């Protein structure tokens, strides 16, 4: 056996390796480009499997998209909430964004409160259903169809369809905004988590139409607008909208809303208490009456 039959392969392949390695090392110095250091940091938070599950070309592609702001911080389905939290930390510090936001579905027209035009047997997908004549089966053409496109879009299981209406769990919501773009009715918006007062309706119909279709719809009466001391709530296109930069969460609007469309947990508790007291008083009066007889 000739020694060259070992020597040549070893030398040639080894040589190629050395040449390429040296060449690349040299090229790395020559063609060095400064890039945003956050890309490296975000990349460090990602699993690094380059699986492409996010729809981007590998973890590096996703990292640069996140830093560029074109991808949400939780776009990695593999890393899940843990990776998203770390990335949010990297990005959040740089963006100076501290206010925690949550998604809110502006419709409470559950099956018992809102009318349906017909029974829908099609695909379980809001986008498809909303393209039908009249914008889906719901009597109110602005209301939640309850087919759960937002719940499908949510990677954190924070949305659930309860009684025909999508409901957000603020504990799980990370405000990625995927549901906002998934909803064909544009019912979902991000709002500051600290502000509890919300308008639970999106109908731009006139009051009469709203009443005909739903018992919890905004009729555009403007009582809230008059009650608000901070100029924070306005009725435009027959729907009340809260400006959260001005809202002080006092709950006056929620208190006065005749259709109970505006919701504030504190006011709601107060109302429930009052109702309970009234019921107790009525009960007592009845008992008194019965005694007197």
């Amino acid at each position, binding site marked *: 056996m000739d020694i060259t039959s070992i020597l040549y392969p070893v030398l040639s392949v080894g040589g*190629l390796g050395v040449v*390429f390695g040296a060449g690349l090392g040299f090229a790395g110095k020559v063609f060095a480009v400064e890039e945003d250091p956050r890309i490296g940091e975000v990349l460090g938070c990602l699993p690094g499997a380059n699986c492409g599950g996010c729809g981007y070309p590998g973890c590096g592609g996703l990292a640069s998209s996140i830093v560029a702001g074109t991808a949400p911080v939780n776009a990695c389905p593999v890393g899940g909430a843990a990776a998203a939290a770390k990335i949010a930390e990297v990005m959040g510090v740089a963006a100076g964004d501290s206010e925690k936001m949550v998604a809110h579905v502006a419709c409470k027209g559950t099956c018992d409160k809102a009318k349906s035009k017909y029974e829908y047997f099609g695909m379980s997908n809001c986008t498809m259903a909303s393209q039908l004549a009249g914008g889906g089966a719901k009597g109110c053409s602005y209301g939640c169809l309850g087919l759960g496109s937002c719940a499908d879009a949510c990677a954190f299981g924070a949305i659930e369809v309860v009684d025909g209406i999508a409901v957000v769990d603020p504990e799980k919501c990370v405000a990625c905004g995927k549901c906002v773009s998934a909803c064909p009715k544009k019912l979902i918006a991000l709002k500051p988590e600290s502000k509890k007062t919300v308008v639970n309706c999106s109908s731009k119909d006139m009051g009469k139409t709203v009443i005909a279709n739903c018992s919890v719809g905004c009729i555009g009466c403007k009582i809230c607008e008059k009650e608000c001391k901070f100029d924070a709530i306005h009725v435009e296109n027959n729907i009340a909208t809260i400006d959260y930069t001005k809202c002080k969460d006092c709950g006056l609007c929620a208190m006065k809303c005749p259709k109970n469309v505006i919701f504030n947990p504190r006011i709601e508790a107060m109302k429930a208490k009052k109702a309970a007291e009234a019921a107790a008083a009525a009960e007592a009066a009845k008992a008194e009456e019965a005694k007197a007889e």
Partner: protein
Amino acid sequence: MVDYVLLVLAAIFVNNYVLSQFLGICPFLGVSKKVETSAGMGAAVIFVMTLASAVAYFIYELILVKLGIQYLYNIAFILVIAALVQFVEMFLKKSSPSLYQALGVYLPLITTNCAVLGVAVTNMQRGYNFLQSVLNGFGGAVGFALAIVLFAGIRERIEHNNLPKAFEGFPIALIAAGLMSIAFLGFQGLI
């Protein structure tokens, strides 16, 4: 001249690397969720595959054949392709940021695209000359780009459909890929 045109056409349709030879399936499934990203991947593959077949040709003819160690072609080609992709990425990043923006993020992925190696090996096995190698590489890459863009279009539509739970995601994608492959079978016998 006609031979060369036929060579390119055959590489695109008849011997489509993804759908007829089942090479490069990984990026084919991995980066085909959106038409936009798949087009970027396709463009990057065209760029690299053409270049890689040219460089692999020289490595084979000038080093391996000269030393009589042709059996090492796999190792040598992998080495060349990996180094080439890295170098192209660095070079583009510095010299042409706009082209890097368009292709750049897809480039590292191509290192592991076996279709690139497949083209180099095919060129070597068929004894193609330099021009034939480059044209075969180019045609093969165009075929890859065509397949992945078409497939991404199909997957975008599948996304909105109501599928049985068991078929959601990759299973239906694989079935779609299989059907596409059968469709491309129709090109056999064209040339």
